[in-house]
């Protein structure tokens, strides 16, 4: 008997995500999103997803909202800081009631993930008492702690079908390592039933074993996707593509105001026409990609 490789191609990974699932996206704000998969979901117009953009998300979530994939959204923030104070499609969908928002802050979302990962029904937190959160998010229950009778907020666990993360490298057995910060990726991996990780490079098992302390988790599915986080950053390799994010934010904003031309152009060029991740990178262009060197 032989040990099995967990490397699959892009289409096979995308086939694992179906309408109505709950997915958790890795990275943090503008770093390390598995954009090859996320663009694929947007391109397939997957419907009815519950999306956890952990712990604070960026425009990768906005893209899924804009393409009509999202029914329910769980994130402490949707924006791109200097490039976009708020995700335009997220803002419009929230204002029109098109999506449900599970209102939270980063620590409440982390508590939900911790409870799920630990297999307990809830975790207690202090933050949120006296705020609008328990009124806006009916899942959060105020209660008295059974020992000291102090007021607390119970944050429930939530089953998650798939975690989708992006990392620097993995071996063919799914051992994933990061050069920089893994943020909450290990946590969502443990909370989810299964994990799909896109990586910049596949490395040998020997390379992984050189520093086992660097292994963040063992993913069930690995897809090789160089520059897989573009237009977001990947620590140790490339920074955010600020111009691309601005282009997205402008097109999306104009679309929410009724002028769809720039957005239709963006969608056609970057989401719908490229048949795979490498075709997307061809659209971005070698010159742009190599301009994103980190230091």
């Amino acid at each position, binding site marked *: 008997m032989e040990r099995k490789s967990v490397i699959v191609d892009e289409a096979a990974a995308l086939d694992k995500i179906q309408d109505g699932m709950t997915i958790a996206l890795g990275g*943090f*704000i*503008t*770093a*390390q999103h598995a954009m090859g998969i996320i663009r694929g979901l947007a391109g397939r117009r997957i419907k009815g997803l519950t999306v956890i953009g952990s712990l*604070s998300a960026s425009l990768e979530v906005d893209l899924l909202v804009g393409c009509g994939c999202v029914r329910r959204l769980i*994130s*402490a*923030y949707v*924006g*791109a*800081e*200097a*490039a976009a*104070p*708020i*995700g335009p499609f*997220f*803002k419009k969908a*929230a*204002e*029109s*009631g098109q999506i449900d928002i599970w*209102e*939270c*802050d*980063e*620590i*409440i*979302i*982390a*508590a939900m993930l*911790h409870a799920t990962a630990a297999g307990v029904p809830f*975790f207690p*937190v*202090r*933050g*949120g*008492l*006296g*705020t*609008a*959160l328990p009124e*806006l998010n009916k899942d959060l229950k105020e209660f008295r702690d059974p020992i000291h009778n*102090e*007021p*607390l907020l119970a944050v429930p666990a939530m089953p998650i079908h798939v975690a989708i993360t992006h990392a620097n490298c993995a071996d063919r057995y799914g051992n994933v390592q990061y050069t*920089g*910060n893994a*943020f*909450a990726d290990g*946590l969502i991996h443990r909370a989810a039933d299964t994990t799909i990780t896109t990586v910049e490079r596949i490395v040998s098992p020997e390379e992984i074993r050189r520093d086992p302390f660097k292994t963040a988790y063992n993913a069930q599915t690995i897809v090789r996707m160089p520059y897989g986080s573009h237009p977001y*950053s990947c*620590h*140790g390799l490339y*920074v*955010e593509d*600020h111009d691309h994010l601005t282009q997205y934010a402008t097109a999306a904003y104009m679309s929410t105001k009724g002028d769809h031309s720039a957005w239709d152009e963006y969608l056609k060029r970057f989401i719908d026409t490229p048949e795979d991740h490498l075709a997307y990178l061809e659209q971005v262009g070698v010159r742009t990609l190599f301009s994103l060197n*980190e*230091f």
Partner: protein
Amino acid sequence: MTDYSVKELMACWLARDLVDGEFAAVGANFPIPRAAVLLAHFTHGPNMTVGMGAFKVCLDNVDQVMTLKYFTDFRPMRWAESASYFPLDLFGFHKMDVFYVSGIQIDAYGNTNLIGIAGEGGQYKFRGPGSIGTTTLAAVARRYYIVAEHHTPRLFVEKCSKISALGFGDGTPGLRKKLCLPGGGPKYCITPLCVFDFHPETSRMRVHSLHPGVSPEQVVADTGFEVEIPAKVMETKPPTDVELSVLRNRVDPEGALRT
């Protein structure tokens, strides 16, 4: 005395209220507190723990710090002593000494709103970006500051439409204690016009000091709630030459605060 911008004044004022040895984090896209923390670190806080992006850094031998566009920027790694990613662990928040909060609304009791402004039928007429980490940090950090880059009646309201970070609620005495929140709540709110503190009995904002050249009438006109202005109100102490020199040469060489 050197000329200075109001943002520089705000940063210098905030820096002076930080104590050596404290633990303070520097966000991205929130340039005034960022400058305040770094300025304090350079001028009187060599033992401060400075959170910069996802790292804890010590800058004692660093001549100049770059401005970060994005919180997750990896480049502070070069000065890092440890990697730090707080929300993951649920840990240590209650040991955080100081924190800075902003909002799309700030109310008379120091509550802030990053969620949105309610419209008709339970919907939002204006949706905000989300609470980030403010809900919990405002509850547990030892103290925090509200920092407003503008001072308008739309920003400073009597009551937030939705509270994302609790200041003093509706002013009920001892409310934070009743909720068992370990943090002391907002200490000051600084704006381009003035510094507010909180009345010890009513917990309402009142003017603590007016920035040089600002009149009480201007604060009243630009504040959406009824604001107390003590008869003898101080003037906010302007930046010193030393502060401005460190600020401009080491903290903000790109001049983000100068405009």
